[in-house]
């Protein structure tokens, strides 16, 4: 129920809506809960709403930390 998936914003629409791509599948979602969403952003999509933006730099840092543990 609280599961959510990363989705890439492909198009901004009227009324705080946006089109996103989920591994090639297109969906129309609400971005009313986020400020200044841009095409190309990755968002956390939950029950048809974007809850948060994914921070690419932090994502990279997490992976770097994991890789370090793995060495």
């Amino acid at each position, binding site marked *: *129920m*609280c599961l959510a*998936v990363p989705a890439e914003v492909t198009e901004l629409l009227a009324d705080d809506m946006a089109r996103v791509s989920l591994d090639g599948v297109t969906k129309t979602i609400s971005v009313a809960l986020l400020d200044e969403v841009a095409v190309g952003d990755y968002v956390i999509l939950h029950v048809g709403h974007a809850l*948060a933006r994914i921070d690419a730099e932090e994502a990279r840092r*997490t992976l770097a930390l994991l890789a370090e543990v793995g060495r």
Partner: protein
Amino acid sequence: MKYVDEYRDGALARAVASAIRAEADPARTYRFMEFCGGHTHAIARYGLEDLLPANVRMIHGPGCPVCVLPVSRVDAAIRLASQPGVTLATYGDLMRVPGSKGMSLQKAKAVGADIRMVYSTLDALRIAEQEPGREVVFFAIGFETTTPPTAVALRMAETKRLGNFSVFCNHVMTPAAMRAILTTPDGVPLDGFVGPAHVSTVIGTAPYAFCAAEFGRPVVIAGFEPLDVMQAVLMLVRQVNAGRCAVENQYARAVTPEGNRKAQALVAELFELRDAFEWRGLGVLPNSALKLRPSFARFDAEARFGVETLTAADNPACDCGAILRGMKRPPDCRLFGRTCTPENPIGACMVSSEGACAAHWTYGRFREPVRAVPIEGVLP
């Protein structure tokens, strides 16, 4: 999928597991509760418990909204849906949650109630717009992740002046449940929490500070992918070893310390605290749930339809309560895998795929033999 596959690398997971094994002190036991059902699901699905050393144990927590919804609220939703002219819109997960007397929304629908599954609050709103002759009630449940989407729909209903849309509000709050777990007199001993993923994208990391400050339990917020969970466990082991207890954030790619301010502001504008709310398994908890503010009373299904929440007991043979408090494991329940399966759930933990019983049934049951326990007299 980007931001998913990278966090499912099996070789890396094994490497993190060896780090945990190397750093965990063999002279002690580490008991970490994963609060969220999403973590329970990941742990079961990827067999993470098998990767952990025997002295690092994961304890399933109550963080599945479907599982913690008490029988009385399910009954109230069924009564609501059975009123003439009412259409109840609900998330699919709720359809099979057992109410009392073997009833569920699915069974109510089969005997004629107008119950529609929706994916999003905006779908519920759309039904109200398209069918002005019907009273559309959205059956809202969930933690802090699903509350903002309910708020968005309410705001839109207000803007569009929709007179036939209302919300049966069952939104509950994570920190209140964590506090209840930590203060249960006969509670399970815990050394820390794997903190919520998506709930924290909304509320941020600050609301967990009391776990560390008041109760001396570390919290590491973690994403729902297997590597996220493994890394969080390593971070918890390190905190315990160092005698530290702090709120740390493994899921920094999506969670910020302050959370989603816009969502928080919207929720605060539309909702206020309930004095008390009943949880399945945890009992009645003060300040643990939300209701609509009086200024939004016209959208409040409880006020509008005089919804009464009558006390209703759980199935006495079901161990969901103890499982939700981390006191028992799914195979400890006498009904597990016998009368209670995902096809025929007796308790709520078997309904949602994030419930501890469903996760164990789907992924974990072959790891250990089901105990032979006599079951006479307990069949529902």
